[in-house]
């Protein structure tokens, strides 16, 4: 008997055994697709095989259709995004060896990976810091004015000037002997403050 002489149920029977080839496979699948009868026969073929191997598999066989109907509803609610689940999740609660095997199947990090989130936050923070510093430098180049820039005068390193309060008191007490420069803002030369005599 050639495959073309097979009736529809025989085609399904052979498909259930994985013994079809070429166009017959497509024919059988198309048949099951459009025929509930062929679908029920597919179920019967596998149920008979299961019961022959282990009779307890007949338990609740009458609920198989309800099981599939319930699953169908859930599958219809599934968005076509098979990449949402990785092998790692599937084996996460398994034994160590199973976990290692699962990691082999892991290809791409998932979008909600916790470590990825931290990397993203750290990246943005670094970028923001660089932009802020860069903006400050650019704005100083052409428009640097005012007392805030005093420390950078001449491009020399800033000098720390400590003012001695006792020296201030002394200079104030003898102001009549000193020039106006004595009470000016501290500057490099103040360290060598001299006692200026009134002009003769």
């Amino acid at each position, binding site marked *: *008997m050639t495959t073309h002489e*097979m009736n529809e*149920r*025989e085609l399904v*029977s*052979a*498909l*259930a*055994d*994985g*013994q079809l080839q070429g166009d017959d*496979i497509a024919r059988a*699948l198309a048949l*099951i697709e459009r025929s509930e009868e062929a*679908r*029920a*026969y*597919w*179920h*019967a073929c*596998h*149920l*008979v*095989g*299961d*019961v*022959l*191997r*282990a*009779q*307890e*598999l*007949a*338990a*609740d*066989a*009458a*609920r*198989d*259709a*309800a*099981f*599939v109907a*319930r*699953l*169908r509803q*859930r*599958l*219809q609610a*599934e968005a*076509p995004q*098979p990449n*949402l*689940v*990785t092998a790692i999740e*599937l*084996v*996460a*609660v*398994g034994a160590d060896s199973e976990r290692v095997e699962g990691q082999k199947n892991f290809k791409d990090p998932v979008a909600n990976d916790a470590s990825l989130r931290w990397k993203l936050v750290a990246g943005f923070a670094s970028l923001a810091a660089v932009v802020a510093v860069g903006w400050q430098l650019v704005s100083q180049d052409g428009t640097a004015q005012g007392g805030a820039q005093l420390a950078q005068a001449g491009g020399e390193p800033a000098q720390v000037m400590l003012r001695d309060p006792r020296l201030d008191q002394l200079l104030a007490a003898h102001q009549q002997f000193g020039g106006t420069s004595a009470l000016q803002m501290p500057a490099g030369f103040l360290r060598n403050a001299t006692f200026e005599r009134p002009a003769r």
Partner: protein
Amino acid sequence: MTPPASPQADGSDALLVERTLAGDARAYELLVLKYQRRIQRLISRMVRDSDLVEDIAQETFIRAYRALHQFRGDAQFYTWLYRIAVNTAKKFLLELKRDPLVTEAARQPDGDEDETSRPGNEPTTDETPESVLAANEIAQAVNAAMEALPEDLRQAVTLREIEGLSYEEIATVMDCPIGTVRSRIFRAREAISARVRPLLAHQSGKRW
């Protein structure tokens, strides 16, 4: 836990997986129809709660569907599905903070028995009197149909379903063409399912 080899291993699973990935959800339902009983039996050996068994089986098939693109065909589909079922059951039990009740055979399967076997006649709580009765009815119908088969049909379907031989191997054993093997297995199934399907229709109260 090592999954046992499936006597039904064949190329049709890979084909159905391929069609599912191409967008044919009905192809996936054929895989479900094929394996749901074995998966539920496997889970029922880990979880003594009939409602939970079905929920976990549902979740197993959903998770397998989502991850189907990762099935590379290196292992049999059932082996892959088996691991998902075991891990899904463990995850459920962890979430529920319940201890799995795993039988000795479930933890240490040997090569001579598959996951459908149980030591002795140890009952599981998902076996209600009704389900036991229904299972017995179906099993008796199958056995009666087998006994009523002509010898060549019975031998062909036995070699296929129980021994797991291919059509080619059966043809060699029975010394007949492959087409004859296919026809004998088909006729045997016709005879058996003719007795079983009315029971299923009666028990479920409806058809497909």
